[in-house]
């Protein structure tokens, strides 16, 4: 290969034009030798391994993989870990991570980053369901205790939140009510809640729930904290933004089925066909609710207060 190698037989040409010839030279080298691990020297005197040539020949102007962080920010442990996991796992930008303020300006994730730990062959399941911005009262595992007033009767009610996702404006949990029927000293239902915000409007718009716009307004209006909003909230195009940072979060809770056996449809003397309008006080953790069903007594009141847990928050995350 005259012109491609210098007097010592080292490869000297890396230009794009000579690419095919250069590759051929490498191919020949590969045939000549059992190993490709030896180096070649460029005209500028820099040594290249064959691996680099293979890359460099394609992108001669490329610098090596960009350094992702200032060296100072990296401690030894970190570095060792990076070395260990280098290229071991496919990496993907994780959307759920974008809510970290101040992190957007960071350089592109380096290949050395420890990534969500899935078997390396798994290209699909790399997203974690990291939940953020739960509050002290509105979080999975939070418990509330209080009463429901139906006519002259008062029933003791316990609520336990099972899952809260502020991103999805979603909450669900179990509602226990005591003494509602003679046959069942305690009845437990699974309920799901919609938080009023950009995703769900004050107007229910669910024909199957049976509430008209008028019914909606009449119920919301019973919450003192709704009154300042009343004028705007009645507008069709109103969007209740920044809902999670307001003093009160409005919700609708709909009981879905009985617990433990979801297949039991009818309980003599009890019904969960309706739903609750909820006003949740973010400062005290207290909950006010109004039950609605077209054939039930109007404005049955639910009053709950948060059971102090001293910051005892369990950690769980769907895998």
């Amino acid at each position, binding site marked *: 290969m005259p012109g491609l190698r210098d007097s010592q037989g080292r490869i000297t040409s890396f230009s794009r034009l000579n690419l095919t010839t250069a590759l051929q030279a490498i191919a020949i080298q590969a045939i000549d030798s059992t190993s490709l691990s030896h180096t070649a020297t460029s005209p500028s005197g820099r040594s290249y391994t064959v691996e680099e040539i293979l890359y460099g020949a394609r992108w001669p102007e490329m610098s090596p993989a960009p350094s992702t962080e200032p060296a100072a920010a990296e401690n030894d442990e970190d570095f060792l870990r990076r070395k260990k996991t280098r290229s071991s796992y496919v990496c993907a930008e994780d*959307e759920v991570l974008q809510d970290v303020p101040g992190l957007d300006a960071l350089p592109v994730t380096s290949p050395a980053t420890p990534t969500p730990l899935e078997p390396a062959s798994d290209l699909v*399941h790399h997203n974690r369901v990291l939940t953020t911005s739960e509050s002290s009262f509105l979080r999975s595992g939070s418990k509330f205790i209080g009463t429901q007033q139906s006519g002259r009767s008062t029933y003791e009610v316990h609520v336990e939140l099972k899952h809260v996702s502020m991103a999805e404006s979603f909450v669900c949990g179990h509602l226990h009510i005591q003494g509602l029927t003679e046959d069942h000293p305690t009845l437990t239902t699974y309920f799901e809640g919609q938080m009023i915000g950009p995703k769900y409007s004050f107007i229910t718009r669910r024909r199957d729930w049976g509430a008209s716009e008028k019914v909606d307004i009449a119920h919301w209006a019973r919450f003192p904290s709704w009154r300042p909003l009343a004028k705007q909230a009645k507008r069709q195009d109103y969007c209740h933004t920044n809902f999670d940072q307001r003093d009160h979060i409005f919700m609708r809770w709909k009981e879905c089925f009985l617990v433990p056996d979801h297949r039991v449809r009818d309980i003599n003397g009890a019904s969960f066909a309706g739903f609750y309008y909820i006003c949740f006080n973010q400062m005290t953790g207290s909950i006010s609710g109004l039950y609605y069903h077209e054939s039930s007594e109007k404005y049955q009141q639910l009053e709950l207060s948060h059971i102090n847990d001293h910051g005892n928050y369990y950690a769980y995350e769907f895998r």
Partner: protein
Amino acid sequence: MISEDDLRPFLRASNKGVQLNALRRLKNSVIGHSDQKALYLDRGVQEDLLAIISGSGHEDSSQVAEDCRVQAAIVLGSFARSESEISRRLLTDSTLSTLVDVLSPATNVLLLLATLRTLTTLLTARPIPTLVDRFPNLPQALAALVIHHSVLFFKSKHESQRDTLVLSQACTLVPLVAPSHSSTLLLAPYLTPPLVELVHATVLLNNAANSAASSKLQSTAILALAHVITKDAAEKLAREAPNFINTLIGLLRGASKDTRLSAASLLASFLRNSSSNLTNNVALVLVPTLMKLLDDAIADHDGGRNCDPRILHTLAIVCADGGVVSDRCIEAGLIKKIVSVIALVVPNGPFANEEADAKLLAGGLLCLSALGQHKDNYRKSIIDCGTLSIVVAVLSTGNKCSDPSFREVQIAACHVLRSLSRSVLLLRTSFVESGVVDGVVDLLSHRTEHDDDDDKVMLPVQGQEQEVPVDLAPSKQFGGEEQDLEVRSAAMAAICNLVLEFSPLRKPILDHEILPLIVEGARSDYAPLRLNSVWALKHMVYSDDMETRALVLDQVGFDLLIRLCQDDELQVQEQALDFIRNLISRSERFIDLLIANVGEAHLFDMLEQKLSLMSSSESFDAAGGVSGGSRVTGRYYSEIVIAALYILVHIAAGLDRHRAAVAEHEQLLRKIVQLMRHKRNEIRLACVWIIINLTWMEDRQIDSSSSTSTSSNVFSVATAAAAVSYITSSSSSSSISGEAVLAELYKRRAQVLVRLGIREQLENLKQDSVLDVREKTKTAIYQVDALVGNVLTSSAGNNYSEPQQQHGQSIESAVGKMMRLRRNTMNQTAMCK
């Protein structure tokens, strides 16, 4: 005419003409005759063929000798193309090494082609994940082949048919030699650049003249590149050669189905590997192409049974992140379409066409699991289509099927369970029959069953003529262990959600006594399995059910727990810390057990170390938000910090002596003061909770410790009082009550906190951007000020004199120690729940 029975001596003939004749006869007699093949293998014809192929013993380079080698390779290929029993017998180390040695640009093209085909046949029938490890020169050899023939291919004005064929075969072989991810990484550096060049060249060529052969070469080259491309290379390409992506997008409208699919597959690899912002747009472009390919396959007379599994596999990757892309696919009816296809191949017996059916089923399930990851209503649709019965059918087939491709099906089925169980509602309604978990539990509890006789493969032992049978049962064979671990890891991931407190299957799973298996998984060297196992354990102690907590703790043990807290993998650390956090939540008893078993000093040292994970510069929003490593690493560091902080919150929510233990570690408190300025509100909130708990005095607490007073309690409070009086030299202290001692203690503690700067930090947090942090801060300020007065407005300020500081500390430490003395004499079970 010679008798076929007597062919062997002629195969060994030194006369090449005779040998060639014998080879041709052999070929004619075995093609299509499995019994003949078996007979010849019994007689050891394999060695003869390999000897001829390698040309060993004869330095004969005559044409006829070359013809012999070609014929021998073709005959071997014919043996390989037979029922699995025979091809399995062929698959020995000497076969592989002989064939791999042939792969060189210097080899006669016909021999090369025959060898490449034989390797393809063998490896299709039985993938060998560790092939590249065993033949480390293989990547270079393949790369050299591709480069050599690419050059000839580029140079030729007309298509060179032979080079096209060699390149096609070599590209087909690329995914087959590296079926495991780790082997792909070994291949990537050698093969990525020549494959990129080759794809480029085929695109240029196909624009000019389109032939079937070059179109096939193009799609195989693209698929090969899709297989080997790494994140590095993908990013480099996306950045440096954006036209390459555009070219691929152009190919999505190509005439050939294979081209469209391969282009989509390579683009999907880019999606997975590249973090550039084009990803979402590209994903959207891929959807119509892939959906059309799927629709065409379903419209076929067989209803999609012959659908290329890569269509579903690529769709799974495209839908992995949810969002608009998944929405589009779901609108196009993807869920129903997948279920209609995979219902054709559900195992209600052996697969009709094992390999292809299994791949199709795996692809379909993988895609369903991808679609079910993000939205509850998609999960419901997937379940409504009857997916669970398919999953149960797959999992109940269990280990009867040890075929490697069936393991992919099992893994995908576990992924479906995992995705669908990310919902309280579905756990309560669809995951109620224990049949759902039986299969998963089986995967965890039984190692691969294997029939020893079937899986012996002959491997040569160095220095020995004889081949020694080596146990190559799937669990050990050629990297089968890695796959076995992947299956267990996927099964463990599915278990994680099913053992949650609100899952009706929690009890059946616990009744299966799989706890020891989960603990064993937590000890695994394989990080994904270790992670999922610790995750499952964490979910088991996420409950007020103290009995289960005790049971789990008994099996896990503190040694393992602490080791996991210091794991090499950040996420494992996080899960292990969360386990402790859940374990000690709302239970003084478990706090006591933790401190007693780990040792107070060790425990708090470890927690302090976790809180120090992020260097101070990263902790502050003011510093510009550079965090160590990357967003992902930064995120895991902060998850670890949160877990460690909540362990402290929970300890401080315990009894007075627990609070005292936390308060005694001033270094720890300093870290907490720093972290109160962290950019993540969860971290700030946890810090405030620690302050609240440390300064929270409840009447009941003092009452309970003195009203239930055993003599030791009285003794200890009295001793504490004595200690206070000794240290403060207060004249009236000899008569103060236990309550007064505690009040004094809390006051001193608050003073220490104030001295460390907590009051200023709290003042800052009054203006926090997050309502919850502001609210809890008010509580904390109220409590601190109630104990020491508002130091920020009082003239004394925070300039405490040196002696006072020392007093504050030594009282804390003296009382803390005495309270711990008391602990030793206490009945630890008294405070359960």
